[in-house]
């Protein structure tokens, strides 16, 4: 065997922060022999194994399913939420997208409404509180009519699905210069407003969810459209216009 390895040599600049009160700092790590077939998170696993073996604490990051559906992973890579690939979560990003010798910057989601818990882990419970204000159809268990009692036109069901595909990762907030959560909230509003189910609470839903969004300290939308570009599920920014219409007509009817 020659000492030449096929793996990449990388320099990692990673945000480390002990807890919410710590100021935090970037730290530099070197990693050899990174396989292009690794996912980005598997690369971080290798780094963490090295750190633990050396008695140092691993880099904390949220992750779970590692197939792009749970919405846990949440890294800003070289300034891009979930990295540069379109419609990709970090766990689906592979190291073949990087070059030998690259320096990669890794940071957490940055938003006032998402305080850092530790290193790359942030607190996204604001999203849960928004959903708790109306992101559902109020139907108690057992009180549903037959599933085919209310037909839903195929294209409406499809549009509903497209919006319902949101994984609640928060990349839209991280990508937005204003840290706005409009795309996240709009996706839930669109998912439900395309369907006849839940129509009676349509006005209440949009008013309450937008109210909670504002209370959580998310910024306003000023049409940068970075959210749509960062969304790993390809949810379109037009969804926001739909929410604005829903909100306006609900607010008018409210008067």
């Amino acid at each position, binding site marked *: 065997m020659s000492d030449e390895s096929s793996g990449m040599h990388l320099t990692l600049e990673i945000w480390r922060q002990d*807890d919410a009160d710590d100021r935090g700092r970037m730290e530099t790590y070197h990693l050899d022999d990174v396989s292009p*077939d*690794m*996912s980005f*998170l*598997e*690369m971080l696993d*290798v780094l963490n*194994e090295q750190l*633990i*073996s050396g*008695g*140092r*604490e*691993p880099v*904390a990051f949220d992750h*779970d*399913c*590692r*197939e*792009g*559906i*749970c*919405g*846990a992973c949440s890294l800003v890579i070289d300034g891009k939420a979930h990295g540069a690939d379109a*419609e*990709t979560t970090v766990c*689906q990003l*592979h190291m073949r997208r990087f070059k030998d010798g690259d320096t990669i910057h890794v940071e957490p989601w940055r938003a006032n409404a998402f305080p850092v818990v*530790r290193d790359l882990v942030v607190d*996204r*419970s604001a999203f*849960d509180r928004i*959903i*708790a*204000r109306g*992101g*559902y*159809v109020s*139907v*108690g*268990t*057992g*009180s*549903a*009519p*037959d*599933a*085919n009692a*209310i*037909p*839903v036109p*195929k294209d409406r*069901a499809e549009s509903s*699905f497209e919006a*319902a595909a949101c*994984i609640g990762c928060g990349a839209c907030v991280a990508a937005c210069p204003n840290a706005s959560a409009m795309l996240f909230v709009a996706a839930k509003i669109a*998912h439900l407003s395309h*369907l006849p*189910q839940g129509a009676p609470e349509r006005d209440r839903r949009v008013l309450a969810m937008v109210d909670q969004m504002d209370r959580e300290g998310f910024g306003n939308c000023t049409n940068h459209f970075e959210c749509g570009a960062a969304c790993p599920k390809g949810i379109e920014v037009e969804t926001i216009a739909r929410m604005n219409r829903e909100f306006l007509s609900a607010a008018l009817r409210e008067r």
Partner: protein
Amino acid sequence: MIQASPRLDSKCPTGPIAERWDKHRFDLKLVNPANKRKFDIIVVGTGLAGASAAASLAELGYDVKAFCIQDSPRRAHSIAAQGGINAAKNYPNDGDSVYRLFYDTVKGGDFRARESNVHRLAEVSNSIIDQCVAQGVPFARDYGGLLDNRSFGGAQVSRTFYARGQTGQQLLLGAYGALMRQVGSGKVQMFPRREMLDVVVVDGVARGIVVKNLVTGEYERHAAHAVLLCTGGYGNAFYLSTNAKACNVTAAWRAHKRGAFFANPCFTQIHPTCIPVAGDHQSKLTLMSESLRNDGRVWVPRKDGDRRPASEIPESERDYYLERRYPSFGNLVPRDVASRAAKERCDAGYGVGASGQAVFLDFLDAIERDGEDAIRAKYGNLFQMYEKITDENPYRTPMRIYPAVHYTMGGLWVDYNLESTIPGLFVLGEANFSDHGANRLGASALMQGLADGYFVAPYTVGGHLAGRALPEVDTENPAFREAELACRERTDRLLAVNGRRTADSIHRDLGLAMWNHCGMARNESGLKTALERIRELRVEFWENVRVPGDGEHLNQALEHAGRVADFLEFAELLAADALDRSESCGGHFREESQTEEGEALRDDKNFCHVSAWEWNGLDEPSTLHQEPLDFEHVKLTQRSYK
């Protein structure tokens, strides 16, 4: 001989099978509506079973505390289920019925599930679809606006409802919405980033839990009148599986050590269509939905060691081995059969890809027949996922797939009420053992999780609350103090070892031993080797693991180490159960028990029972309790998919 254990009263009702659940519900005591708010219920886990149970119980008026290890209840691993959910609606008019779904599930489970439970599951399946649609789950529809169904995993009828390849996500978001509605109303208190470390038993009844707050490291005690474990399966005992990284056996295992019997741990499901291992860095395996087998054809080269690209292998040199071996079911044979057939070909040297541990799943015929757009509409997200991971385009070259650990049919033993051998401790969803026997059919996991949570536990938990005297217990009770102390000591021990190996590296070694000796095919000597190896690893873990940091902050290394420690104890029980069950059935294939054609051979005389294990302490053999299984309606037959 099978001996019924007096400790295992299934409480199954008798009488005509279609009336049993009704009769049982009538016999269960009811809690007066005005009294419901006086009862506290703990729900651990917020996947399909946990979220649906927490929401439904809160709707009834109980005060619910719900716990999850993730940062949000919406991230539970049910979210990753792809293919669909079964129900006996018979919308396509193709001959389905509650009885047929019941029959298929008992038979598909290779006759190791209780008939009464399975029939109830089939009965409530239709209500689940109604409920989910009313919640706004965007299932696939036809041009008339009505719900679409597909055939799935070998079923001869189309009974699977689906939302593209993201059915689990959509169902979970429906249940999560119902849960969050109750959080908003104040009936559910949500505790995210909590790990359950112990069940607290007072006077023989489960009365609370001890959890660790994963952010602050604090131990928290929570008292209640009933505890529901909805904490999923133990597939990650194999390290590599399709489970999410946080999936673990800890909650179930700690309950087991407090007296909940563990049933059929050797019944693990190896899913035939997963993306193969790419290298040593592999951290998990990704499933490619079984629905792909509706249109994909599985093949390997006829010549062993043929490493030409698929496009250069002519039709005449391809072996469509599932179609060859099982002409009537072809590519749609059940999961266990498809997995073993893939292993058989690869072991014989016909595997493809760099490792030789893969077979082709080919869509070119389907694309030629239906057009690329039609295939994209059905499987677009799966094809995209495949391409991201492998850098290969499955519209042009066949997918490479190989079996991987996916689901665990075994789990904590429960009676017909879903109550474990600890009174007041209920177990729902994948965490229990009850409905899938030795093999789960495709699109049945989502059905079972939601059946348990929406339509079974809300009644049976009420029976427990109304039927037992439950004196007030608070968290200063000595049982809480003792449990918390034990949890603290365990954490301190983990931090104090200060050895040289990471928990992850030991977990990988455990996984390798499990996969090699306790995977798709098992035999006596391999299982004995596994038992020895697991014990060695457990000893090594406690002598040589290194867990940096402390227990007072978010410490993911500590979390993982704690889970690995439990997997190391649990794995021994899994292997011991596999060794004891010397028959082949469903996903449990013992090489000593096969037909001349290499198919699984059951031994109903000696093994037509549930094996429920009682914990006696570390390094003490567990006690085996048997619950005999009666088949009054589905005749015991050898499965055949020829």
